[in-house]
């Protein structure tokens, strides 16, 4: 009797998880475009319109190699938002509040909370974060203000060859969090079977690309406003480039 019950719970849980996966499970990350560092909104090869979403970007912060702040902003360069800084940056980070989303039984998503969509079968608040290491860090990567979910390399000496393992730690509200999903290649394999962080918040992935690597951490936390949403989904990228051989 016990086993079927466990199975039933598992099945129900899986169904709930599937339902909880938002229709537009997109993230943000940074990548080089025409020598500039661009903010990308999308998933996989879908590089969607990030310029129209610029008003949703709450902060963009740049840092030098010593993690001292560098005055940084985003500017629309045609259809692409690019990073503009007063000095060279070693890292850049951004926060996007993607707002409240409710799903109705007809499968449609509405950019409103449950309080405005009473028939919603699901309602969530989406936050998206991005951290890009433009230069390889020489010390620990700090936790950035406002990034409720952040993925950090445990050892700042990131291996420089694809195929090598990389251990990362997921932090939620500044503390290691177990059960966060860590995707190793959000751009080239958005459907991968991702790993989960363990009790110490760490997970080990394999570096997939001798080029741009975009890791994505995902964590579903409790509702920040129970009248409006069922939960909050946090999606946080960590991107960096492994160098190619000299030409």
């Amino acid at each position, binding site marked *: 009797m016990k086993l079927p019950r466990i199975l039933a719970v598992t099945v129900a849980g899986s169904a709930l998880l599937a339902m909880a996966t938002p229709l537009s499970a997109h993230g943000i990350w940074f990548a080089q475009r025409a*020598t500039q560092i661009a903010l990308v909104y999308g998933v996989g090869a879908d590089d969607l319109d990030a310029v129209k979403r610029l008003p949703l970007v709450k902060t963009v912060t740049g840092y030098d190699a010593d993690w001292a702040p560098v005055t940084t902003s985003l500017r629309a360069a045609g259809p692409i938002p690019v990073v503009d800084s*007063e000095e*060279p*940056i070693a890292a850049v980070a951004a926060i996007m509040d993607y707002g409240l989303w409710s799903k109705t039984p007809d499968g449609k998503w509405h950019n409103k909370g449950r309080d405005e969509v009473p028939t919603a079968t699901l309602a969530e608040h989406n936050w998206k974060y991005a951290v890009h290491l433009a230069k390889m860090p020489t010390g620990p990567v700090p936790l950035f203000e406002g990034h409720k979910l952040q993925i950090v390399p445990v050892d700042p000496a990131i291996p420089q060859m694809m195929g090598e393992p990389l251990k990362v730690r997921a932090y939620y509200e500044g503390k290691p969090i177990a059960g966060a999903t860590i995707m190793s290649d959000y751009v080239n394999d958005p459907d991968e079977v991702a790993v989960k962080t363990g009790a110490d918040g760490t997970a080990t992935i394999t570096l997939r690309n001798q080029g741009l690597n975009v890791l994505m951490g995902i964590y579903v936390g409790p509702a920040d406003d129970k009248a409006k949403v069922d939960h909050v989904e946090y999606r946080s990228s960590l991107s960096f480039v492994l*160098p190619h051989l000299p*030409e």
Partner: protein
Amino acid sequence: MKLDLMKLGLAVGALALTPTAAFAHGSMKPQHGGLVQMSGETMVELVASPKGVDIFISEEDEPLPASAYTATLTQTASGQKTQAALKPAGGNKLSAPGFKAAKGAKIVVALVDKSGAKVFTTFQTK
């Protein structure tokens, strides 16, 4: 000019935006006795002299028109920052007349094209 530069012992520092060193096509040989650094596809040669600081810009051995760019020079020395505009000075040359390059300083050249795209090049003095 060359001698002044050598006296300063300017050393090329790491360049900025990407971790990948630029391996664009084109010679890295200084054309004006200065120091050369690559940022993206753009080669910047910095020449310091008692008269000031000049930069020369090119891509794949082809000079870029200085008039198509705006540029600034930021020097950090002993915790103090000084900045100057680099003005087009004909051909592929931009100049900051009177700018004194100090020893032990970091000099960052920010080059902005008409589209607003900006590239940085960093030089470190010894």
